């Protein structure tokens, strides 16, 4: 009887829906509070089967170089700045501009601390701290003209992840899993991995992977290298998988009995969530256990296993991608180089270089590169002006790179001025980056919206234009 009424209930949703799938999707979304289909616990995505355009990429691996990687030591070669090393920064650049720790200090130029070299057929120019990345220079698209709006770490990350500095908005991983769902029933669709080292570690707030006003199921799940890889995923001590299975099974049976009495559609959802939880208890350890990888693969990444390093996280990112995750975000926290930018950028790059290069090569050899969008970006860059022998935060122009699904390989887009201060050619905003990412995933950034406080919100707020020069 309960089953009958539940299905009537579901049909009524479908029947009433002037907007067909939209209503079903909404109902089922809610229905993580109500009326979700027990047979399909996987969220199909609000755009399920109705992408706005052909998708070039199926998933995103977003590598956040947290702390603010200096563009001048990595991807943006500025001979003129080297010439002016130690000289006062021309006031025409800095007057009236927001400044962080260099407030009320004398502003002197600091030339790039590392040599640059052109690589491959594309001639993409990289600094010498990238010993490995040069070998895939023809696969990446460098953007040297990104601009952001927030000059302190915390709001700048929030802006990069949510398109606004105001708290409470969904992060891009949440938007994507909301829109597209994920191709996995055993793992979360949006996973976050973190590592640190090389320089000063800035804090990272769990707000950065929060779903904001989107339902919590779209929140990023933070995988840990210490303790339970996913919080509470391991059984309590003294009970094995069979014993735990007895408990889960009993809960499911008793919930079914209850469902027959009270006719609460939420019970069906709860049962499916317990199933997924129990599956995760097996699939997460399986994901983290890299013993099934070949030695060649381990050598490629330069890692011994899931030990919390960036290289290991790159390998896990590939494993998550293989398992159907939609949005995989890595944070490496070591890039805040207020002092000793020369040594610190080199040290930090050493922890990054082989992992990211291996990830690109590995995806290519597995035919996954073409449908995986890779973004490698900081929340902001660093000043051309010296802060002692380091650099301060800088938002007016800095560098990132993209690669993979739908991205034009072996290209450099945009430029900063002679001193690496302002982005001047093909300026790309964070909203433009988001619009482009969504475009590659088959989504019109103006059309994927969610109503909150009476307004249709979207990842790009009221901004965003697609960066055509990045498209293959």
């Amino acid at each position, binding site marked *: 009887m309960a089953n*009958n*009424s539940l299905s009537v209930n579901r049909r*009524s*949703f479908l029947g009433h829906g*002037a*907007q067909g799938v939209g*209503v079903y999707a909404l109902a089922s*979304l*809610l229905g993580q*509070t*109500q009326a*979700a289909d027990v047979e399909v616990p996987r969220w199909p995505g609000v755009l399920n089967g109705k992408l706005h355009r052909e998708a070039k990429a199926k998933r995103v691996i977003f590598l956040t170089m947290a702390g603010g990687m200096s563009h001048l030591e990595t991807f943006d070669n500025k001979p003129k700045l080297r010439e002016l090393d130690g000289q006062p920064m021309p006031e025409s650049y800095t007057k009236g501009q*927001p*400044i962080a720790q260099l407030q009320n200090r004398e502003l002197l130029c600091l030339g790039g601390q590392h040599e640059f070299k052109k690589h491959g057929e594309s001639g993409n120019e990289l600094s010498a701290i990238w010993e490995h990345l040069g070998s895939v220079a023809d696969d990446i698209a460098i953007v040297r003209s990104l601009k952001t709006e927030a*000059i*302190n*770490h*915390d709001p700048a990350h929030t802006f990069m992840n949510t398109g606004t500095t*105001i*708290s409470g908005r969904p992060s891009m991983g949440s938007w994507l899993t909301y829109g597209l769902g994920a191709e996995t029933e055993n793992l979360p669709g949006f996973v976050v991995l*973190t590592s640190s080292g090389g320089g000063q570690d*800035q*804090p990272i*707030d*769990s*707000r950065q992977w929060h779903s904001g006003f989107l339902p*919590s199921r779209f929140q990023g799940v933070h995988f*840990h290298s*210490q303790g*339970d890889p996913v*919080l*509470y*995923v391991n*059984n*309590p*001590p*003294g*009970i*094995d998988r069979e*014993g735990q299975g*007895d*408990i889960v099974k*009993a*809960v499911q049976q*008793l*919930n079914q*009995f*209850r469902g027959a009495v*009270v*006719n*609460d*559609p939420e019970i069906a959802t709860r049962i499916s*969530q*317990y199933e997924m*939880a129990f599956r*995760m*208890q097996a699939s997460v350890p399986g994901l983290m256990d890299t013993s099934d990888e070949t030695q060649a693969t381990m050598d490629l990444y330069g890692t011994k296993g899931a030990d919390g390093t960036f290289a290991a996280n790159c390998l896990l990112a590939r494993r998550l991608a293989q398992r159907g995750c939609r949005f995989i975000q890595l944070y490496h926290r070591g890039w805040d180089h207020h002092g000793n930018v020369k040594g610190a950028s080199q040290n930090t790059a050493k922890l990054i270089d082989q992992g990211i290069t291996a990830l690109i090569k590995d995806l290519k050899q597995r035919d996954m590169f073409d449908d995986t969008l890779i973004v490698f970006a900081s929340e902001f860059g660093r000043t051309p002006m010296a802060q*002692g022998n380091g650099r301060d935060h800088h938002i007016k122009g800095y560098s990132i790179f993209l690669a993979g699904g739908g991205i034009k390989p072996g290209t450099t887009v945009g430029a900063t001025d002679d001193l690496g201060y302002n982005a001047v050619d093909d300026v790309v905003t964070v909203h433009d980056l988001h619009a482009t990412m969504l475009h590659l995933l088959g989504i019109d950034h103006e059309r994927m919206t969610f109503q909150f*406080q009476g*307004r249709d919100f979207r990842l790009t707020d009221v901004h965003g234009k697609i960066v055509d020069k990045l498209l293959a």
Partner: protein
Amino acid sequence: MANRRILGLSFVFSVAALSLTTVSAQQVDFDRDIRPILSNNCFACHGPDENTREAELRLDDKDSVFADRDAPLIQPGKAASSELFRRISSTDENEMMPPADFRKKLTGQQIELIEKWIDQGAEWKQHWAWTAPNRPQVPKAGRNGVLNPIDNFIIRQLSDEGLTMSQPADRVTLIRRLSFDLLGLPPNAEEVAAFVNDKDPKAYQNLVKRIIAKPQYGERLAMYWLDIVRYADSNGYHADKTRQIAPYRDYVINAFNTNKPYDLFVKEQLGGDLMENATIEQQVASGFNMLLQTTDEGGAQAKEYLAKYSADRVRNTASIFLGVTLGCAECHDHKYDPFTTQDFYNFASFFADINEVGVGNAPAFPVIDGMLADQIADKTSAIADKQASLNAVSREPSDARKAWEAALAKQADTSVVAGKWQYLGPLVAASFDEAHDKSFLNEAESIDLSVGVGDKKWAEKDFPDGAVHALDQTANAAHYLQRTLTVKAASKVELKFGSDDGIRVWVNQKEVLTNKVTRGPAPDQEKITVDLKEGENSLLLKISQGGGGAGFYYAHNNSGLPADIAAILGKTERTEAERNKLSDYYRDNSDELKTQRDEIAAMQKQLEQLNNSAPKTLMTRVREPRMIRVLPRGNWMDDSGAEASPTVPGFMKPLAIEGRRANRLDLANWMVDPGNPLTSRVVVNRLWKLFFGHGLAEPLDDLGAQGTRPSHPDLLDWLAVELIESGWDIKHIVGLIVNSNTYRQSSTLTVELAGLDPYNFKYARQSQYRLEAEMIRDTALAISGLLSDKLGGSSVKPYQPAGYWKHMNFPKRTWQMSGGDDIYRRGLYTHWQRMFLHPSLLAFDAPSREECTVSRPRSNTPQQALVLLNDPTYVEAARAFAERILMHGGPDDSSKLNWAYQIALSRNVNPNEANVLLDVLAKHLNTYKQNPQAADEYLSVGRRVTPENIDKSELAAWTSISRIILNLHETITRN
């Protein structure tokens, strides 16, 4: 937030419902049917925002809509000759509205509605939420099912649609529902039995009275209020440092428990500090203004953050009390509601008097009241008495006093007389090395105290000898300290120093010590003996500072009579002031009076301890109001905008303040003025949500044009007026709601209702939904018997996975678990770290409280299953519950299961359920009998020690049963 989703849906369904009854059959209501269409599709270009307005047409404004035009926009009664209708029904790409390239389109049904509205006469109505509620007539609804006027409104609307209320729920369901809704806890078995067997016709009303009088009622309502006002125990941005604010939380709990009138509640929070003779309670309440997120990030610009804080207060205060999205007008005029950008900054001006820093941590102030205040007053007066008598004794010319003076005079002859310290600094350098090494002034020449360095001048400072003194903390800076040392004859004197960080010392312009070191200051880190010449000598210190705290210590080895005392001793003729000074010195230093002094010192120490024992909390402190300007496009660096002043939004009833600047208290008074259309509706709407799962008007934080029209507008207004006329009596409104028949209905979802009203906006039944995050924890602890019933106090830290705070920094922190029963406190006392909220609370949708949250989502995720299955809180609670079952559950397994079900679910286990459970019990009993070590491990989770006299395999097996019960949907569902 779930309600936002429900909002989306209800919208879909109200449209769908209209399609079932045909448009032609109904009377179109502008406010209900037409404005939402215009707002959603047209206001973006033809609405309140001047900057994006096209064709000088405002469709939110009656005057603009009906203005004289060649082609009248609206010809009442004649849609066919109305330009508006022509344009929205046109298929010509050059004519159609919304324009062909606009992302929104009107549906055929919406066009038809607008046509009908014009044909019916195009009656215009003000948006419902902008006019003050009048008490509507209570509709007639017969006697059947009516317990109070709420039911009349509900039944009337149901009967219009041919529906009736559901049967009342059974008593067990009712007491569980009331318990969860009013206390956030399940009822205990005795309370359930007493109510089920109560023959009194007023049994239910009496139960409500009993429950609403419990202290847990205040905790439950506070739980919601703390979400709304974004209460947290940390600052929010960057380092997310801990802040002291728990007394504000306790103020809220107490306010609900004592049923503080809501108007006073509003006034005390917004302007408690401004009230006449503000009590400590009112000052604590004013901590409300300090609940926002703040930063202390190095390199953050104060001006930028002050602008952020200002906007935060506008956005959130408007959401909290008024339920409107005034925050949308920060960069441009509101797109849907008549709020201008000037309104936004005018509103911000009310808060311009709050004394705060843009970058840094707000100071917390001690909360001294009640018994503690008495103790402090007693101790203070006892000290004063003692001090007075000591003063008197010290002025008597006793023999002891005379002998002391003579000895002292002798000592003065050989003593080093030190002059006052002169201080210069901090002098900023590029590095610590430079701070230490660089000569900011010529140390080799005598110091001219009238010449400073840069903008820093020499200034006299009182740094008593023999103590560590803090200096300004600027990183990479130098501090100079100079004084004279006078001796009657050339002599060797030992000087002792401490420093944070480095130190250099010159005596008579010659460097006698340098130590470039980083350290904290302590006495006697350096000792040197120097030669002083007869008469005056110059001592110059330089403290160099790398980072962190700065400070120094100085002493020299003789008894070191202060210069002024030595001088007085040298005189034969003394003024009265000098005599008193000497007496005071005698009082403070002589051996004869040491006992009395020690007594006073001990009392002072006690006083200090009393003062330190006071909890501290953020409070609002005022300053001269800052100038607030409109920030063009919200840009904090742009000072070109118009000045703003503290006034309320222009389209609303103005403040009645003249001849002075309006303040926060005036704003609060305006909010709770009976003529304010929003405040009372917002409160009753949100109270309603607590008892039905959603509001009468959704969303709960937008009563503006983009919100949906209330499902029962008259009921909402009736309750709002009832609230005001009852003297803003919250318990009265709560009592009315829970005593209504509407509330008492069964929640059973019938096939018919599932189709007609799946989200229960018509209230032909009650709803069933999951408990809130804190209540899930509280319920498990209550069932297990572990729950602590302590009310209020500092926030606590229960079990949390190690390393969860790994990614916080400045400083790095680890979670320090609370001691004793504090790990078993209710969830609302859990330390609320905004950046990394406790993961179990987070999994069940508790918000990080960065912004006002009026409605949490109610998700259902695998993470929740993992928490209930594996979080040590629940595993330990299950074990404690198992102990209770074994102790109290009776002789056999069946009776034990029944007992457990009664405790957890207030009912007996049924045979099907029992079979499932007994199977697991038997299997696990067997497992743990065979593997006692596994049982030991299983029973080791949590801090609770298992009693020795319990059979461990049995306890382990019953722990499994308890875990099953704690994981049941029924256990965490309010029905």
